[in-house]
């Protein structure tokens, strides 16, 4: 509860280590533009990771986020391209609504069917991607088709900080507050920690799980809107394969894959770490054939380091505690 989360410290340590190492090799890695780029790059993954965290905490998983992102990105871009006059907030809302509908579908199938989320969302991963392809029919929406102000969202900064990064931070903070300080948020942990006990305690598990998927879907929809704004070029393949990255970010961020423990700040740090790995490799000009191998190795190193720190801290706690901390 109020104890410091050693798990987050682990990711943070890995992140700082990576940044320090890269900056030592190339000081321009810490230039203002560079940091801005890093934050901007991490924004979309962070938003997705925040939604995924909520789902994973309940001992579920949402593999369909990449496809949802693709659908929402294409939907938003298509709307703006065919109806250039659409107000931007309305377009964004459209994207988020697409995501929310997908999330609601996932949640309903899983909670009413009482079936494993991994299977359902693996199914919707295929179905939604297929739907996006059918919709796009090979079309691509390009920067020239999109209104200028929309594209500007992707690069705008507020006080030197990219708007997208601020948005992602706001999402993370809001979700963190909910998970940490509200009864319904804590119930998500309870459901993931021991579903049987949650049922006995009268926790409305079905409703909470549907909420979690709805949130994850909506955030994936939002990520789709951000994606369209940032890249300006959208076709039906947007976000393909993103699900593994998101899951990796969440897991690297210390969220237990079988639910019940972890935090959204940890997941956000995980997303930042993964993005940072990509940027560092580009800056360090690592041999391109080695890059993917190094990414994999660094993921392993990060979760390994995290585990090491956690057990070390736990062991120290056990050793410093009184022999047996309670008397009859």
């Amino acid at each position, binding site marked *: 509860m109020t104890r410091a989360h050693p798990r987050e410290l682990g990711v943070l340590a890995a992140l700082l280590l990576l940044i320090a190492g890269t900056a030592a090799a*190339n000081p*321009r*890695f810490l*230039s203002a*533009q*560079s940091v801005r*780029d890093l934050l901007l*790059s991490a924004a*979309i993954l962070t938003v997705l990771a925040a939604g995924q965290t909520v789902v994973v905490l309940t001992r579920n998983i949402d593999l369909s986020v990449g496809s949802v992102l693709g659908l929402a990105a294409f939907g938003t871009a298509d709307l703006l391209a065919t109806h250039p006059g659409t107000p931007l907030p309305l377009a964004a809302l459209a994207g988020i609504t697409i995501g929310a509908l997908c999330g609601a579908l996932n949640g309903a199938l899983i909670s009413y069917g009482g079936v494993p989320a991994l299977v359902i969302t693996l199914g919707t991963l295929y179905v939604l*991607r*297929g739907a996006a*392809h059918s919709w*796009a*029919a*090979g*079309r*691509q929406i*390009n*920067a*020239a*088709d999109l209104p200028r102000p929309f*594209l500007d969202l*992707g*690069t705008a900064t507020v006080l030197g900080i990219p708007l997208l990064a601020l948005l992602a931070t706001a999402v993370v903070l809001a979700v963190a507050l909910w998970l940490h300080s509200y009864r319904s948020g804590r119930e998500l942990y309870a459901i993931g920690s021991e579903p049987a006990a949650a049922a006995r305690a009268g926790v409305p598990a079905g409703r909470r799980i549907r909420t979690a998927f709805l949130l994850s879907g909506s955030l994936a929809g939002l990520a789709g809107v951000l994606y369209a704004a*940032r*890249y*300006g*070029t959208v*076709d*039906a*393949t*947007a976000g393909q394969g993103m699900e593994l990255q998101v899951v990796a970010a969440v897991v690297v961020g210390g969220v237990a894959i079988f639910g019940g423990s972890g935090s959204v700040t940890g997941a956000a740090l995980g997303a930042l770490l993964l993005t940072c790995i*990509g*940027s560092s*490799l*580009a*800056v*360090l*000009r690592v041999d*391109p*054939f080695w*890059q993917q191998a190094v990414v994999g190795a660094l993921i392993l190193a990060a979760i390994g380091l995290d585990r090491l720190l956690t057990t070390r801290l736990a062991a120290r706690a056990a050793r410093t505690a009184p022999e047996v901390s309670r008397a009859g």
Partner: protein
Amino acid sequence: SGTTRGDGDDGGPGPGAGPEPTAQADPDAPLRPDLSVAFLPKQVNNPYFTVARGGGERATAEFAGTFKEVGPSEASASSQVSYINTLTQQGTDVIAISANDPGAVCGALNSARDAGAVVVTFDSDTRAECRDLFINQATAEDVARTQVELIAGQIGGAGEIAILSATPNATNQNTWIALMEEELARPAYADIEIVAVAYGNDEDEKSFQETQGLLRSHPDLAGIVSPTTVGLAAAARYLSGSEYAGRVALTGLGTPNQLRQFVHDGTVESFALWNPADLGYLAAHAGAALASGRLTGAEGETFTAGDLGEFTVGPDGVIALGPPTVFDAATVDDYDF
């Protein structure tokens, strides 16, 4: 050569070709009616191939055949094999394929030819012995020369340049890069130096990051060449919103639709590409000519491809579409693909 062999193979000729359509080409042979033409791109729903499909469709309509496009939703050789097998089963007359691997689809393609199909490759070739013709969108030399000319002009003939490629294992990319290096070795380009080659894997985010990495590791970079549409669009998008806009030149291969915005805002001065629709159009016509006996694929044969005019088969059964088109602020709006 994974699929069932047996029937055609025993009688098949030695290395160098699959079973050749017998005898001589007859340029005046009538076009066979009801030809079934199938396009098998690297990946369906890819905008580039969607444009190429449009050309193929138009051509097929001209000779009154039936057209279809089939293919995997992810670019892999193995799934192409399974689609080739399907086409074989269906008795397709013309298979126009852009191969994901020069060797892996060979067995299946040869089976298809044994079963009576003609095989035309376009955009990305297989080994020469497993197809009848290759429609080359532009010779590698042409592509490399155009790219070098464009970037040299934009940076004023001197400075550091970098290349943002697709995947490190994309064969045509690597050929172009090698030829560009050769081209730059000429005295005229003595002041231009390639300082880095980066790979954006044809992914938006990766291309962004690699562009950033290039700019960060090479403060004096004067220009970037990205001979891949995804990379060029991503790099343009990144530059247009960064402090480097206008300071670093950018060119490469891209579609007018993707880059219109950036040409108009000055991020990209000019870039090049062939017309994918023409590529598909030519591939379909070549296939029909083969299937009707107007062509055998031998060097020196000529045929007429609808409104594109006459083409000649070069060495190794290659037909070149022509040099790439260069687009700039004045011309980019004339195209829609």
